[in-house]
């Protein structure tokens, strides 16, 4: 347990085995562990909006499982393209470091989310408004994403200095990850859990497309 806590501290400070340029042995496993543990922790808190009501506790386990699932499956889907495009750009030798950097960004995102979990819990205590809870969580994810940038820049910085093409690769990763991640998030709904809807791992209408919904909304808004 102490070892795990030490690893988190080292990771956040970028020291020890997580220092830039340190031996990568065993780091990926730890990063994956951070994503699973802290993703689960924030997911459970996120679902506590309705999950603490009698008979709805399993909602917290569902969402706890879904947060790491959202991050890891999205990464897995984007990985082949990221690998091939990096290779074509002549950056294959650095791919291990690039992969470590994007995983580290996600690990930092989940740690930051877990650190913000008490704030989310306070928000839930303060308001029974479901829409406000959704908006608040969007805010928490945004703050955590900004925090993740610190780690991403730490690990990607030396790569970009080595070759500016890494900057384009990072942009490619962000674009692809966001594109797939938005749809993955849509498919894996609900994350917070509407108190008036029954508990479910997937919504009955989950197999939809977020972009089609947005396009139809835009189309409707543009109609005279």
């Amino acid at each position: 347990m102490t070892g795990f806590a030490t690893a988190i501290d080292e990771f956040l400070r970028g020291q020890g085995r997580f220092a830039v340029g340190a031996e990568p042995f065993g780091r990926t496993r730890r990063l994956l562990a951070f994503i699973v543990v802290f993703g689960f922790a924030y997911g459970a808190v996120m679902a506590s909006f309705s999950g603490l009501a009698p008979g709805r506790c399993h909602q917290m386990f569902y969402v706890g499982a879904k947060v790491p699932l959202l991050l890891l499956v999205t990464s897995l889907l984007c990985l082949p393209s990221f690998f091939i495009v990096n290779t074509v750009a002549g950056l294959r030798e650095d791919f291990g470091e690039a992969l470590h950097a994007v995983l580290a960004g996600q690990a930092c995102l989940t740690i930051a989310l877990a650190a913000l979990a008490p704030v989310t819990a306070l928000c839930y205590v303060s308001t029974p408004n479901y829409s406000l809870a959704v908006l608040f969580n969007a805010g928490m994810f945004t703050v955590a994403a900004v925090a993740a940038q610190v780690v991403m820049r730490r690990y990607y910085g030396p790569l970009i200095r080595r070759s500016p093409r890494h900057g384009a690769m990072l942009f490619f990763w962000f674009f692809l990850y966001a594109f797939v991640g938005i749809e993955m998030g849509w498919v894996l709904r609900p994350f917070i859990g509407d108190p008036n809807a029954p508990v479910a791992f997937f919504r009955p209408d989950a197999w939809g497309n977020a972009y089609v919904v947005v396009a139809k909304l835009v189309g409707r808004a543009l109609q005279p």
Partner: protein
Amino acid sequence: MPTWLRELDDLLRGRKGRPEALAEGTGHLRIGPHVGMAVLLGIIYGLCMALYSVLNRTPPAYEQFLSSALKVPALFFLTLLVSFPSLYVFSALTDAQLSPLAALRVIVSAVVVSLAVLASFAPITAFFTLTTSSYPFMKLLNVFFFGTAACVGLGFLLNMLRQLDRARTLGATSQAARAEEVTAGRRAGADPPPFTTAGKDAGRKLFQAWLVVYALVAAQMAWVLRPFIGASKLPFEWFGQRGGNGFTDVLHAIGELMGT
């Protein structure tokens, strides 16, 4: 690692496009294995494209698997077949000095790179297919992925041309490469670069102009070979009716997606 995979890896890493490798000519860019790889990669993506038609049609149109798996590689090679003669003619007219065979090898390599990028998008296409019933969305997603793959292939091709220039400056072209690269009629014993100094700029401009032709032919070829995905409301067909064009269809798909 199997030999073909190692070849693909070398190509994607750019090892085959290094000036040192190109100084010996383009013989190492073997057309046969590259065509085989391109077909395989095209089949992988084609199968993922056809998944939409299988999942959304009642009864499922399994023929679409075969149709799309054949059509994706065919799109790239038929486009090459249609546009390559014009490249050869313009090339000869501008005295670009890149022999037809060498040009073909370089272009087929770029096709392999494009298809490798396209195949790497296959998991994402499959994921969206599983979660989406909107045909216009799938159409636009595939247009985007094909466009991205084509752009990466284009970048690879232009880089290869730059490396050929560098290979010329290395001045290490062997006699064997000379025989292959130099077009008939050049005086014996002269320096035999892929592009001569005089023809270098003309050759590059020609290639850039030809790429526009290639892109336009590819877009129209995709339209001629449609359907690749297969609309859920329509019965399976190998080829769509003649008429229309891909550009207006894309605009129409955007409108349809927005429900207008």
